[in-house]
């Protein structure tokens, strides 16, 4: 990665302090995002992906707290900024779009008023110029007859339209980084494709970097350049998007890929990953995935592996790829199904 890095997260740790207990939701996450590229953060519910995103903008609700680590955005550590400074960055240099377009717009204001508000906060635009810019933005995100739309209320728009409005609001100040927290989860499939296409187009048009948070490997394949797979608050695998589909390394990544239907092979039954994400309250001592991993050995349950760089440039947190691996030396994680059955 020789390109300019826009975001460099280093050992980010975010916890929730509940009744004197520290619940580690994000536990030592590190990744870099080159300028103009898209990174996908993938994982099941509860893996800490949304909390990572919230930590970047420091939007954590109480009792969430960043316990340590650095979030370097353009050379500035966001964790050390004051409330006022981070507010100037929110919506201006870093924007975020949310999962639920149906509830992410305030029902009492028109679309135009809401877009204008962002422009007013960060650029001090008056009503007239704000409206003009709002219409431009709505045109940019592909909303037909924007002159009428600015006067409408959120309930008069469909889910896909609202998500476009959200994107327009997020783009109002030409942010350099866009965080999309499951932007298509609540939309139906055809609209999903449209919204992803829109984000991709806007990205190349405006030169933004994007963090795409999702649990959908299809979305990853469609939009991302790099992928960080998260499990139990830690990154378990980091690769560029081609390698992750061609040669997934971590058994969890393999599990995720096996649980989605494919067009090129004829599979009778999809293979889900058995079990659930462990609660952050009682994380396994060793590898967090060990209780659900078909290859887990004693070593896996006792000691947590580190995130190691592999020969092909990817990073993976798994004992299988280390010298200390004590299981079958010929193990092939991509044949997990057969292995699981033979056990």
């Amino acid at each position, binding site marked *: 990665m020789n390109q300019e890095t826009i975001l460099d997260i280093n050992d980010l740790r975010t916890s929730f302090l509940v009744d004197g207990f520290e619940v580690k939701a994000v536990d030592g996450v590190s990744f870099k995002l080159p300028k103009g590229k898209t990174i996908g953060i993938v994982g099941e519910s509860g893996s800490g992906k949304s909390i990572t995103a919230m930590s970047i*903008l420091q*939007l954590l*609700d*109480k009792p969430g707290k960043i316990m340590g680590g650095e979030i370097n955005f353009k050379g500035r550590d966001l964790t050390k900024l004051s409330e006022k400074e981070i*507010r*100037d*960055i*929110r*919506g*201006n240099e870093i*924007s*975020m779009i*949310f*999962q*639920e377009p149906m*509830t*992410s*717009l*305030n*029902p*009492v*204001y*028109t679309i135009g008023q809401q877009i204008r*508000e*962002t422009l007013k*906060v*960060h650029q001090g635009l008056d009503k007239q110029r704000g409206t003009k810019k709002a219409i431009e933005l709505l045109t940019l995100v592909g909303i037909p007859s924007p002159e009428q739309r600015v*006067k*409408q*209320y959120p309930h008069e728009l469909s889910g896909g339209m609202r998500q476009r409005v*959200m994107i327009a*609001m*997020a783009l*109002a100040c030409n942010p350099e980084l866009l965080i999309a927290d499951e932007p298509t989860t609540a939309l139906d499939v055809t609209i999903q494709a449209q919204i992803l296409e829109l984000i991709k187009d806007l990205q190349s048009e405006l030169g933004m970097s994007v963090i795409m948070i999702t649990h959908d490997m299809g979305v990853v394949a469609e939009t991302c350049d790099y992928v960080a797979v998260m499990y139990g608050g830690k990154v378990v695998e980091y690769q560029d998007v081609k390698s992750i589909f061609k040669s997934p390394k971590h058994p969890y990544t393999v599990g995720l890929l096996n649980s989605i239907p494919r067009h090129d092979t004829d599979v009778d039954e999809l293979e889900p990953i058995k079990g659930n994400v462990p609660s952050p309250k009682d994380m396994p001592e060793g590898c967090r995935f060990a209780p659900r991993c078909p290859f887990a050995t004693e070593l896996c349950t006792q000691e947590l592996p580190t995130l190691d760089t592999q020969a092909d440039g990817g990073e993976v947190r798994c004992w299988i790829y280390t010298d200390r691996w004590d299981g079958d030396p010929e193990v092939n994680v991509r044949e997990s199904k057969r292995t699981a059955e033979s056990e």
Partner: protein
Amino acid sequence: MNTEQMKQTNIKATKKDRPWKRSLKDFYKKLVKNKSALIGGYLIIILIIIAIVGPFLTTLDPAKPDYAIKLEEPSADHWFGTDHHGRDIFTRVIHGLWITMFIGFTATILGSIAGVIIGIVSGYYGGKIDAVIMRFMDILLAFPGILLALALISILEPSRSNVIYAIAIFAIPTFARIVRGSTLATKNLEYIDAMKALGASDLRIISKHIFPNILSPIIVQASLFIANAVITASGLSFLGMGEQPPSPELGALLSDGRDFMWDAGHIALFPGLVIMLIVLAFNVFGDGLRDALDPKMNKK
């Protein structure tokens, strides 16, 4: 806007209307369906008009005694009769209506402003601030309203402004509670997070995004509380702790009539009827307003 004007805008309303006009129209339609609310609304408007215009139209002095005509029964000259000082009760009721309504409205406005601010701060920031504020509100709520007002006035002194403050203070916890609850429900909605993510400050989020969304329970509570404030204001004067003689506050008029209940019932009857009318109007209107603003009722 009075109801007549509202009707007119409804007739004129077309699809080209601005959206807020449309929602006002919807709201009015719902309100109209509730007949008792409509009657309450008209009654309130009539009472307000009488309270404002009435004192300028009466020819008699409400405070000037004329012992030649004391304790007269209702007649063409004195519609509501005269009291033991020979003062015209009709004139006094008209003037008293203004005083009582003024106290009711001002106290409710003051109390609701303070209660709304306290409730929003408490609900929005949560944590220790919330715990301290709400425990204090619980203490205030533990006193029956009139008792609290009585205690406050005996510490201060009986005067119109002190009555207003006392009623406003006991209005605070009821408003604070409702507002806190609504704020809690609203602040966790996604559009508030979205506004935060767009860089809006707390003050902006509270004033532009939370407040407009919790306005309807506040309006309902205010219209119901005015009735309460009117009863308390006249109750205080009745007990001699509010308006002082010769002020024609409705409660004071009632108190005047108490001694002559068997000989000249009209002295107490008319002020009492007017108090009842005010309270009834606001209660009925408030109930109707609540139904009209409650989205759950719309499905029916």
